């Protein structure tokens, strides 16, 4: 008998875990339903509360950027929303997931089930919110009269890539948070920082121009290697037409004559690969520790 290489063993272990997870798919579904039900059980507006928060933030940022910073991009709110909605999914899913295992610690001590359903169900519940908000965004574009681009066909792929990335990180942090409760604070601090590091309020072109101006043009490649950046850039480039800035409308000198850069598919492909690797590593990490959760006091 020939010795199997270690990666094959890893693969078969993961396959076994996934089979067991599939056996418990109804639990995953029931937990998602519970999350969605409980969140809005006693509110009249229900789901719309989860829209109110991003919409109000987008309205505020739009007013500031348009009338205070006067960047002068027509339909700026659409360019903001298209990045803000996937960001909200990223943020909310990770915040919820970081607590998910610890919150059910009593349950873990009593009942056997694949532990990964806990973080995964919070991610999926937030994914459903995200999908609904995308529908609202679509309606908003129709009202604005923005042309719907062919790139919308890529939307499922973009969502899948982001879902994989979020799942991977969620598995890591939900597991670590069982042992070190600082993780949830670290996660919330990092999310606050990444909100500014990610091209949400501003355009990736501005980053490029800014880096070029100080002679660090190469760093823009590094910037796009961050899968979150690449995903957010892809959302904007594929779901919205290229923007045009009339030079006379912007007061910020360095952003005059800043053309929309062509979408670079390579970075989306890299983001897809990196997200998949993070998801696999996250799952392996979670699995290696999930049976000691119940022993943690």
């Amino acid at each position: 008998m020939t010795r199997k290489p270690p990666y094959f063993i890893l693969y078969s272990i993961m396959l076994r875990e996934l089979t067991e997870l599939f056996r418990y798919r109804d639990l995953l579904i029931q937990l998602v339903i519970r999350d969605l039900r409980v969140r809005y059980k006693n509110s009249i507006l229900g789901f719309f509360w989860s829209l109110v928060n991003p919409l109000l933030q987008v309205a505020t940022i739009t007013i500031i950027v348009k009338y205070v910073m006067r960047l002068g991009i027509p339909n700026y709110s659409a360019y903001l929303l298209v990045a803000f909605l996937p960001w909200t999914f990223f943020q909310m899913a990770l915040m919820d997931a970081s607590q998910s295992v610890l919150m059910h610690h009593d349950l873990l001590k009593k009942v056997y089930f694949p532990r990964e359903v806990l973080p995964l169900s919070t991610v999926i519940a937030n994914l459903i919110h995200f999908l609904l908000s995308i529908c609202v965004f679509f309606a908003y574009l129709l009202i604005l009269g923005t042309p719907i681009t062919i790139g919308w066909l890529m939307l499922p792929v973009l969502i899948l890539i982001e879902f994989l990335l979020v799942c991977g990180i969620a598995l890591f942090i939900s597991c670590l948070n069982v042992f070190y409760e600082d993780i949830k604070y670290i996660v919330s601090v990092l999310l606050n920082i990444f909100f500014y590091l990610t091209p949400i309020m501003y355009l990736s072109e501005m980053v490029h121009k800014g880096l070029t101006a100080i002679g660090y043009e190469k760093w823009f490649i590094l910037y796009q290697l961050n899968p979150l950046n690449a995903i957010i850039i892809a959302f904007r480039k594929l779901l919205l037409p290229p923007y045009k800035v009339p030079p006379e409308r912007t007061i910020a000198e360095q952003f005059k004559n800043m053309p929309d850069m062509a979408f670079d598919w390579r970075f989306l492909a890299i983001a897809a690969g990196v997200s998949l690797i993070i998801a696999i590593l996250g799952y392996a990490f979670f699995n290696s520790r999930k049976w000691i959760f119940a022993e943690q006091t």
Partner: protein
Amino acid sequence: MKKSIELINVRKAFRLVHDRASSLKALALAFRKPKAEIIWALDGVDLTVEYGETLAIIGRNGSGKSTLLGLIGNIYRPTEGRVIVNGRAAALLELGAGFHPDLTGLENIYLNGAILGIRTKQMREKVDEIVRFAELERFIDAPLRTYSKGMVMRLGFAIAVQVDPDILLIDEVLAVGDEAFQEKCYKKIEEFQHAGKTIVFVSHDLDAVRRVSSRAVWLDDGKIKADGDVNNVVNSYAEGITSG
């Protein structure tokens, strides 16, 4: 012949950490490793349970009863030795695990059923029976937080007995509810026995132990002190307690 449950020289250690570094700051500030005491909750247990047997486990608090149940129920993994369980084991450890107070009784039935590993499709067929067994017809659409403790317990038990496992693990659940409900529970356990299921039963209630099981195991300090006919084991255990 294959046995229902087989434990071969099982040892289970828990790390009892005094002053555990539960935050990174504490971890960074601790110059020494946190003091961890290894507690052997089970220390060399050999146990075989035949198909269709009802086994009671008795012993003082902290003697390892719940750990043993947790090992059979696949909640813990043994530190040493092997645990072989043939068939699906389901725990009736604490009723209503995972119940959510803001969901209705009906919504909780589906959720709790899924936690216990029952397919939603099967739950749909059983939901009427569960509601009837729990005697909650009038309240099933009300949120669980409006239920009394007894009602929650009844609902939990009604769902748990639907699991239909090959091996049923029961941890002190018969102590809940009024006498009429307890009678119902005993009946259900008898049904399981007639159906040839294996039952492992942990209780402090020696009368309940005598009534339900034919064989008992006395656990003391993580080791089996006596194993055999229920009356003999229970008697020597009772003597052991009174004589100190």
